[in-house]
């Protein structure tokens, strides 16, 4: 995501990462990897629960179906640096958009949110396809 961040910004978008590790890990990750976008910590899984992100058993964590993707990742040099608290929590990716403005009962101007895209990782080596993410970012507002 970091490597495509400039393209995402050029489309007017932002990236936000939510991890399961504690603040020390988040801070080290953001500094060591020079992450230019916000990195947040979901220590008690409130956000993961609201987003419907799954926690799975060992059979899903080490599923045979994930082996080819895991092998490709290892060959590419990918390594897990700092495992989070909930190692059995799978990843997920969403594209969220501002929705139409509406008047709240107290007279304040409110804005709803729209979910344009979602991907729940099927196993640890699974990730959302970047082309689908960019399709969602590029979608005209009227279609959102």
């Amino acid at each position, binding site marked *: 995501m970091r490597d495509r961040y400039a393209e995402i910004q050029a489309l007017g978008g932002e990236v936000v990462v939510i991890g399961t590790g504690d603040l020390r890990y988040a*801070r080290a990750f953001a500094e060591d990897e020079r992450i230019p976008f916000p990195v947040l910590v979901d220590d008690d899984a409130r956000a993961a629960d609201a987003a419907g992100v799954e926690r799975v058993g060992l059979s899903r964590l080490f599923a045979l179906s994930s082996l080819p993707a895991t092998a490709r990742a290892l060959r590419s040099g990918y390594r897990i640096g700092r495992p989070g608290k909930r190692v059995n929590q799978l990843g997920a990716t969403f594209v969220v958009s501002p929705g139409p403005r509406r008047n709240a009962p107290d007279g304040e101007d409110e804005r709803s949110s729209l*979910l344009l895209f979602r991907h729940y990782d099927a196993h640890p080596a699974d990730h959302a396809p970047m082309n689908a993410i960019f399709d969602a970012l590029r979608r005209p507002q009227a279609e959102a």
Partner: protein
Amino acid sequence: MRPAAGERSSLRPDAACSPRIPAMDLQRLSTLSLPDASGTPRRLGDFWRERRVVLVFARHFG
């Protein structure tokens, strides 16, 4: 649960390991505040108030 209008999903409904489609409560998610790497609380809904956001739940940092 089918994707709502305007939503596209890359979920695999035929995945043998995960037949259920998770429930996503975007309204509740928008109200939550989480600390960033510096410890500052950040309200999630503020990120997508004015722009589209790619929101990534990562299993681990790095």
